[in-house]
């Protein structure tokens, strides 16, 4: 979906035509004495490591931890995780580049993943993505991406806003989400997935006005259009 980035020489691989520098020392596990790691971050990573028989298993949780700390998996962030886990930074980089949610380039602080996979696009997911881009695409604090199926096709078209699922969305909702995030509010509270009851309790006209079920505790939304099973 994303256009393939190419380097000046036309390849997708940087430096493919440059010989390796054989005079350089091989990359090693970072030295704790010369790699400062914030105490809290170290404790968090060590707690993850303790959960598994093998230290490598904590790679993903540790990379998430440094990503939360630094905003993205920067070389410094990866070096810190590698230092605590006693692995090479190259190993953790290989893991970080594999997964969609670990970002190896600077990103905005607010992650907005708009699902544009098949079920959402059948109900207008692509238009929602466009609307989201025009609402917040210019703001560097937003990381707006089109994402593969997020597993919430019942509220399609939907998006994951800082990990919170919201939907069904229309173009006005995209502007509300951007405003909510800028104001530091929880995004689009009325359409969050934690409010949604089981589908058989819904009718084509929308959910019943009474007997609202709030799965997680939280402010309850009102109104009949909350789940908006749009009558297409």
């Amino acid at each position, binding site marked *: 979906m994303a256009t393939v980035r190419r380097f000046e020489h036309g390849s997708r691989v940087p430096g493919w035509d440059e010989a390796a520098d054989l005079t350089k020392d091989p990359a090693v596990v970072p030295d704790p004495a010369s790699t400062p790691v914030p105490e809290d971050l170290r404790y968090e990573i060590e707690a993850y490591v303790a959960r598994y028989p093998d230290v490598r298993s904590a790679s993903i949780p540790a990379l998430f931890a440094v990503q939360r700390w630094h905003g993205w998996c920067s070389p410094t962030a990866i070096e810190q995780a590698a230092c605590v886990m006693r692995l090479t930074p190259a190993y953790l980089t290989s893991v970080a580049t594999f997964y969609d949610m670990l970002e190896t380039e600077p990103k905005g602080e607010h992650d907005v993943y708009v699902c544009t996979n098949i079920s959402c696009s059948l109900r207008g997911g692509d238009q929602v993505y466009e609307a989201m881009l025009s609402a917040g695409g210019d703001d560097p604090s937003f990381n707006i991406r089109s994402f593969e199926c997020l597993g919430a096709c019942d509220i399609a078209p939907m998006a994951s806003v800082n990990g919170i699922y919201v939907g069904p969305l229309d173009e006005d909702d995209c502007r509300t989400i951007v405003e909510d995030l800028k104001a530091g509010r929880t995004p689009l509270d009325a359409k969050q997935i934690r409010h949604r009851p089981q589908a058989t309790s819904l009718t084509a006209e929308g959910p019943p006005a009474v007997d609202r079920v709030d799965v997680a505790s939280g402010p309850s939304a009102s109104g009949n259009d909350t789940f908006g099973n749009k*009558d297409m």
Partner: protein
Amino acid sequence: MTSVAAGQAGAQPDQIQILFHEIDRPGLASLDVYRDLGGYAMLKRALTEMTPEAVLAELQASGVRGRGGAGFAMGKKASFLPKGDMDKYLVCNADESEPGTFKDRELMQKTPHTLIEGLAISAYAVGANRAYIYIRGEYALQADVLEDALIEAKAAGYVGERIFGSDFSLELWVHRGAGAYICGEETALLDSLEGKRGNPRLKPPFPAINGLYGGPTLINNVETLMNAPHILKMGGAEFAKIGTETSTGTKVVSVSGCVRRPGNYEVVLGTPSRHIIEGLAGGAPEGRSIKAWFPGGSSAPVLPGTDEMLDLPYDFDSLAKAGSMLGSGAIIVIDDSIPIVDVALKTAKFYRHESCGKCTPCREGTNWTVKMLERVETGEATPMDLDIMASVCEQMMGNCLCVLADAMAMPIGSMIKHFREEFEAHIEAARERNGLGIAMPDTVNRGAHAGPEDLLGEPAYAGAAEAH
């Protein structure tokens, strides 16, 4: 918890609710409410009154088949694990990434303790002392709910050392993934859980023999494991009476796409598909009709929306016989206003993005299929591209370590098979828009050997061009 009363046997099929029973009860995610409904009683019974072999026998007798996609009998898979004192593992596959599937999301979010209980029972049955729930990273709310439930369960002694005073101990953790469809494949999931890039492994050896950290490992889907407490409660033989002979129990079906009420519906296996799509989910929107549907997630071959297909019983074998599969139990409905070419392109792009790149047929096949479909979309294709695409799909199938290649080849191949005329019309219309002229459909070889080979062979096209 379970309430399949005997009186309900003759009731409407969708009225038997096992997993969704009381699903919207406020606070069900908390231990207190779950226990009030009889939660953890089955774990207690298993640990204090039954031997692991007896639990395993019940699971086998139930005939419950995996709900994640492959549909392999759960009890049978569990019985493949070797007996002995080695470290064994149980992994719950909660990396629900199949497009159109969202059943596990609702189940984990609303009743996390059922999963924990099911996990503990299954772990006891196979003798695993370490278990992990591999949940996809995008499910932040559900992972939080599970972690809270796990803390409660550990505090209450349902997970940990010597549960209920028995000799059985279980260490259980929630492991969050980081966004990769391929990690739902069992061996890729194991690699990911071991902290590597999520690449599938060669099978055999199967995970039951050589899995996580090289130890015997049982991997099951969330919904499968959640059935375990209910199987013990009802008894395996009684559970096997629900549904059809080879597809026992109920299935939570995720219906999405062009329907009026998308959502999760629990149905007894063998329920007519029409009842799920039109009865429960409300059918296609006003004034439109169903053109095609995916019966089991986007990896399943599509079926046309004909009466014959819609009347198929929704179970593993009937769908397999019709040339598709039940898969993860996700029905995606496509109505007649949607061009099938768009659906094909969207599907193919997804698999190109998610191919891990380990096997060449998948890495290259998904890429070239997308390129050919883009040519169809922009009007640069000829009907011969459809033949090439079909042959690419054919050669991707079964030639890779995992089934991701098949998962793209099956829907794309089936779309070309069922909707070839629409593809051809689309090609002609797009070519006309581009001023390229018609693509000579009558002279194109559509035989089994179509493709580059024929181009090099007899000069069929030279003569054809003169005839025009």
